[in-house]
Each structure stands twice: as structure tokens, then as C-alpha cells.
């Protein structure tokens, strides 16, 4: 394994890739490919995605997380990604992803919580003087309202930490998501609309992106990378695991949940 020139002036080098409107599946494939086949550190910023899409976690159960009937009726694509968490994304979502080597920061333990805390340092800088930013459990909040959700994947030598920021959202879109069974404590059973907030009410869009890049620059030496350059396959044998779910799979999920419900109902009737 070639050791790249990772340190300059004591800071690790990071490749900065700026995308705009890239489809979320394409972004997830890119992230996974960089995680598993690259030796560099990467920061990917995707300013909005093309089409509204539901993104589900690696082990998420569609029947528990989504209103599948509405999703199928309105033909919303559903993607299962290689990290956890569920989110509905569209043009109003800004994505920021870090793909790093474990030894980029020798003092940083490569476990979920330490990486989460490290990332919050960056955004604390972004929101300094702008909002009451903090990290609560796995979410970025302003006050007590979530505006950014995080997920990670940690491998033997590298990790990915990606965030979906709610720059803006459609109220109707939230109707496709159910109230999750496992919710953070601070949510306190609040409905989606009482739980989340729009970043656009606090900071202009381009401002957020520029400030984020500046904040990243205080932890890394930035090197801008052309989007075309990153598209070329670093390793043609790599198969990403994030995928679009088929219609049949979602229909099967509804069927399973209904039959489970029917069993439960008949069981309670029998007893």
C-alpha cells in the first residue's frame, strides 16, 4: 500500500469535491467506492440532489420506516444505503461527506462517538455567531430542532461520516416517513414538523457551503478535485452495496407487515 503524501504543515491533506445536483445513488456509490478503494482523505459536498428520494439505512425495515402505500403511489424511489438512518432528500438537501483514513488524526479514536464529536467541531465553527449549534446524540441541532442527520461506516483502516442537511424541505415530503420506533431521547415523541427546522431560516445557502469549506480548511489542507477526475474507476472490480429497491420488494414489505398484523389480531382474538 503506497503511503500518500498526507501531511503538509502538520495537517492532513484532503481532496475537496464539489458537486451540485448529483443523484443521491450516484453520490452513495462514489462514497462507498472512495471508502473501500481510495487511500486519500475526501470531503464531498453535494449541493442538492436531483429528484426527491427516500434513503433507508442498511438494516432498515421499510414497513416500519415508510408509508409504503404513498411511496408506491407517488413512485418515490427508495434507496438502501451502506450506512444507517432514514431520510427523505431532494433539491433542498445539502450533503457533506468525509471519507478519511484512521491515521489522518492519530489522536482520534475511530469509533462512532469520537468521530461524531470531531465532526461537530467543524460545524460549530460554521455556526459560530449564527445559531445555537450543538450535537445531540447523532443529530446536529439548532436549539432543540434537528437540521442535520448523520451516519457513518467504519472499516479496518478508514471511515465515512456523512451528513444530510435540511437546507429546506417540503412539508408534504415528511408525510412519506413514519415516526421511527427508535428515536433519540431529545425528540420526546415530537412529530416531524415540530422536531426539524430549516437551515435557510438561519444562513444563506452559499454562505453555509463556503463557511463549511473554510472550517474544513482549519483541520486539513484542502485540494480541489475535478468531479470528472473522481468519476474514473479507481478499481473496476468494486461493487457498491447501496441500491435502489425494486417495486416488488416494497410491495412484499407491505404484505409482510399486513400478514404480521393479521396474525397478531387473530392471536389476540383467540386468547
Amino acid at each position, binding site marked *: 500500500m503506497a503511503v500518500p503524501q498526507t501531511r503538509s504543515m502538520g495537517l492532513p491533506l484532503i481532496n475537496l469535491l464539489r458537486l451540485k445536483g448529483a443523484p443521491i445513488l450516484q453520490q452513495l456509490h462514489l462514497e462507498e467506492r472512495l471508502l473501500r478503494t481510495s487511500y486519500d482523505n475526501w470531503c464531498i459536498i453535494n449541493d442538492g440532489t436531483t429528484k426527491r428520494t427516500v434513503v433507508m*439505512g*442498511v*438494516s432498515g425495515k421499510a414497513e416500519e420506516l415508510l408509508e409504503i402505500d404513498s411511496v408506491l403511489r407517488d*413512485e*418515490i*424511489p427508495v434507496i438502501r444505503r*451502506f*450506512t*444507517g*438512518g432514514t431520510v427523505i432528500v431532494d433539491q433542498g438537501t445539502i450533503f457533506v461527506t468525509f471519507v478519511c483514513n*484512521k491515521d489522518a488524526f492519530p489522536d482520534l*479514536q*475511530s*469509533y*462512532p*462517538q*469520537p468521530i461524531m464529536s470531531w465532526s461537530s467541531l467543524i460545524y460549530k465553527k460554521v455556526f459560530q455567531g449564527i445559531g445555537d449549534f450543538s450535537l445531540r*446524540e*447523532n443529530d446536529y441541532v439548532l436549539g432543540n430542532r434537528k437540521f442535520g*442527520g*448523520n*451516519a*457513518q*461506516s*467504519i*472499516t*479496518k483502516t478508514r471511515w465515512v461520516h456523512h451528513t444530510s442537511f435540511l437546507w429546506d424541505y417540503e412539508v408534504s415530503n415528511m408525510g412519506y416517513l413514519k415516526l421511527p420506533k*427508535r428515536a433519540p431521547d431529545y425528540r420526546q415523541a415530537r412529530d416531524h414538523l415540530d422536531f426539524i427546522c430549516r437551515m435557510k431560516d438561519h444562513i444563506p445557502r452559499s454562505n453555509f457551503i463556503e463557511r463549511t469549506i473554510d472550517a474544513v480548511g482549519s483541520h486539513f489542507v484542502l485540494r480541489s478535485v475535478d468531479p470528472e477526475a473522481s468519476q474514473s474507476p479507481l478499481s473496476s472490480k468494486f461493487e457498491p452495496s447501496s*441500491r*435502489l*429497491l*425494486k*417495486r*416488488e420488494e416494497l410491495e412484499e414489505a407491505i404484505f409482510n407487515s399486513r400478514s404480521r398484523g393479521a396474525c397478531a389480531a387473530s392471536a389476540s382474538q383467540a386468547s
Partner: protein
Amino acid sequence: MICRRICRRNPWSFSHWWRSVYPATTPPSAAAWADARRASSGLGFLARAQPNIFVNRRTFSLFQSHHEGDSLSIQFGTRGCNFTTHALGDSPIGGVVDVPLAQTGEGIAECELLKWFVQEGDQVEEFQPLCEVQSDKATIEITSRYRGKVSKVLHIPGDIVKVGETLLKMVVDENAVSDQCSETLEVIKVHDSNTSEVDVTDSGPKKAKIGGALSTPAVRNFAKQLGVNIEDLHGSGKEGRVLKEDVLNYAAREGILKESSVSSDDSSADEYLERDQKLTEVASTYGREYDDRTVPLRGFQRAMVKSMTLAAKIPHFHYVDEINCDALVQLKASFQDENSDPGVKHTFLPVLIKSLSMALSKYPLLNSCFNEELQEVTLKGPHNIGIAMATPHGLVVPNIKKVQCLSILEITKELSRLQQLASANKLSSDDITGGTITLSNIGAIGGKFGSPLINVPEVSIIAIGRIQKIPQFDEDGNVYPASIVTVNIGADHRVLDGATVAMFCNEWKLFIEKPELLMLHMK
């Protein structure tokens, strides 16, 4: 980050132990002892306990002056270990060890097991990923601390495992115990008569790793693939590490890898001889391939012999034309963009098929059947458009029934269904009979256009070449790019004449170049 386990197995010295258990900030002075003795009767035990302290290390009664008769009894074992985030069971040397869920950091109590990377019986290397777990929003790869063999897997994907709970049991290799404290290692080694690897008189170059050459798991795997015993190698890396180059050089020397270049200039006589021997071996292998090989024709190939023999009787003529596919390319892109079903992949063929059917409605003579004996032509009602498919088993032409009644999406799905069946050699006889006209998309493989042979008893066949972007001239003499495809229509000249085929082709071409016209016929 690997956290070390510090294990203290030595019996605790008295002073060490005394410091650990005495709660007061200062150790008791002789005066304090004397005072204690003078105090209430309940404290008399202290004088007696003193010898006990030395004899019985297991319990110790603590003296506290303000609580008469009170005593705290602290139990502790003779063995103490400080654990870091990697909790371990008993000494794993050569035995079965419980590998717990760890490497998750603080604040995580349990994880869901997502998938295993190993199974029972697998040999694993140090740091090799064992499984992937998920906690909240993070997926984490759990790697092995040891080199050994998986003896029992205790959970299945979907199980919730608590941090610290055993994930699997492993039989650890003897020489994987580099983290153990050296004194324990030596103590046990002396008693273990099975350690044949411990050979003190071993030759110098081999590194200190008992019984094994130093190398990474990747290099070991590579050596294994080549059939090279890594123990035989002399490492050229740091600290005598065996590198991939060492394996390659060794393999080449041992003749495991055939030398591809024949450079006779600087080779010694011996090497030349060796190479010569290898060449004769190679020649004999190749020699066998120059013999004749007889292949009996079966299945699709046999059917092809039959149909082509019949086709040879038909007087064919071929009509060639070019079609501008710019609109078609745009249409396909539009279908694909709005496609939310990953089971459906939009290609050009369904649009070509549907527009062909539209043109056939106007020129039904191309969708007919010629009966030579009765000298009559049957104009077929349904447009059963056959699609020539190249499969590993040969050429086969299943057809899509009644295309005039199908939508483009339905055609796409049906085409996909037939393609899958064809490649699996599972087409039914109904799928391959009843065709009325055939489309051969040879362009999918290559070629500009072909001169196809008619699929008897049909009267026409259409070969489509590859869509190519070529320069065209407009009215003002300016060059512009256009996606052009060449088509070649083979027709039975006993039934069709050039004019009919030309007009039919013009009609078809119109629908391809202006697909919006298809909407005029939408019901």
C-alpha cells in the same frame, strides 16, 4: 487503534497489596497500631489479623477507628488485569477463545449484526475483518485480534449483540500471542511439549516470530495462491519481512511461473537448457490443439441449419436505408430519467418495435406468409415481432406477440423476459413459434449493417446496425452531428417488390425520426 491488555499474573507483593486496599491516605504508623490495640475489644482482632494478612491473602479485615467492631471485608483475587476496550477471556494460547463484540467505543451498549465475512472452519489472520455490525447510524467492521481458526459462530445476521457479548469462538494459533506478557509465555512454553516450532538452533535469517516468516496477510494469501510455502522464503523487507516481490522471485526461480520473454543474450547455459525443456513441454501442449475436432450440431444450431437451408430457396432482395435517431436517443433518455423501477431498463429496441408495428399496419404485406404450393399469401393479423438473440447456446428468435396491442413499456418488459429465458435456454415452444416478421439488432454487437436471411415462413427481415454519430450537412452547407443507424430489409421477392418495401421503410423511418407521431395513433 489497538489497546493492549496488561496482565499481571505474579503473586501480589504485600506492599503492593497493602497500598491498594488501605483506604486511608497514609499507611498506619506503629503508633496507630499500638493505639488500636489499646482500644475496644472489637479491635483486638487486629493483632491477630496481622499474621493472617500474610498468610491468607484472600480476605482482609479493614480497621476503622470510629466504627467499633465494624469491619469491611474486601475480597479480591490473586490475579489482576487491567482491561482496555478489548476484553478478553482466559489465556488463548492454542486454545479456544471467546471473541467478544468490542471496537465500538464508549457510549454504545449493543449492535445489530449485519453480516459475517467468515464462517466456521475459516482460517483468519490478525486484523482480518470478521463481521459488520450496526449501532444507531454507524456500520462498523469488527476485525480479528488474533490469527486462528473460527470454531463456532454464535450469532446470525439480524441478531442484537450486547457489547462484550461473545460473537464467535476461535482456536487461536500458538504463535499469535505476541501481546501476552513474556514471563507467562515462557512459563507455559516450557511445559508445552507440542511446541515443535520453538527451535532455538534455527538458522539466523529467520526472524524472531516463532514458527513463521514475518509477512502481511495479503502476501501470505498471494503465496498460498501460487502454491509457495512462505516458510521457505527469505524476506527482503524490513526486519526480514517477506514481501510480494520475494514470493514472485521465488516462484519464478522454482519454475512455478512460466517466463514470458525469451531473452537468450545474457542467460547461462543451464538456464537455457531449462527454458528449452519448458518450451518442449509447452509445444506438446499446443500440438494437441492442432488436431481436428468434430462437433455434432444440436439444439439451436441444428434448427439454424434447417431454417437457413429453407431460406436459401427464397429469392432475397435487400433494401438499405439510413435513419436519423436523434429523437430516439432523446426519447430513451427521457424514459430512463423518469424511470423509478430498477427492474426496467429502457433501450432503443422497444420504440423501434412499436414503430415497426405502426408501419406494418399500413403495409400489412410485410407481415405475411407465403405458401409456395398453393401460390397464396396470408396476411397475418397479429404483429408477432421476432427478435433475434445471440445466446451462449446459439441463435434463437423468440417473438413478442400482438405488438399492436402492447404499450412501449409492456414491450420493454416482455423483451426483458424473453431475453432472460433465452440466455437460460428456457424459452417455450410458444415463445419461438408464430412469428410474423423478424428484427435483428446486430448493431448491439457491432457492424454497420448486414444482409439478413429471412426466417421462413416469413417474408421479410430487418437488420439494424449500430447507432453512430456522424457528420451531416444541412441546407446551408454547415456540418452538424447526427445519430444515424443503417437498416437493411431483406425481403422475399416473390411476394414483395422494391417499391412496397421502400414505402414501408419510409413510414417506419418517419415514426422513428418523429416519435411524437406515434401519439396520433394512441387509443
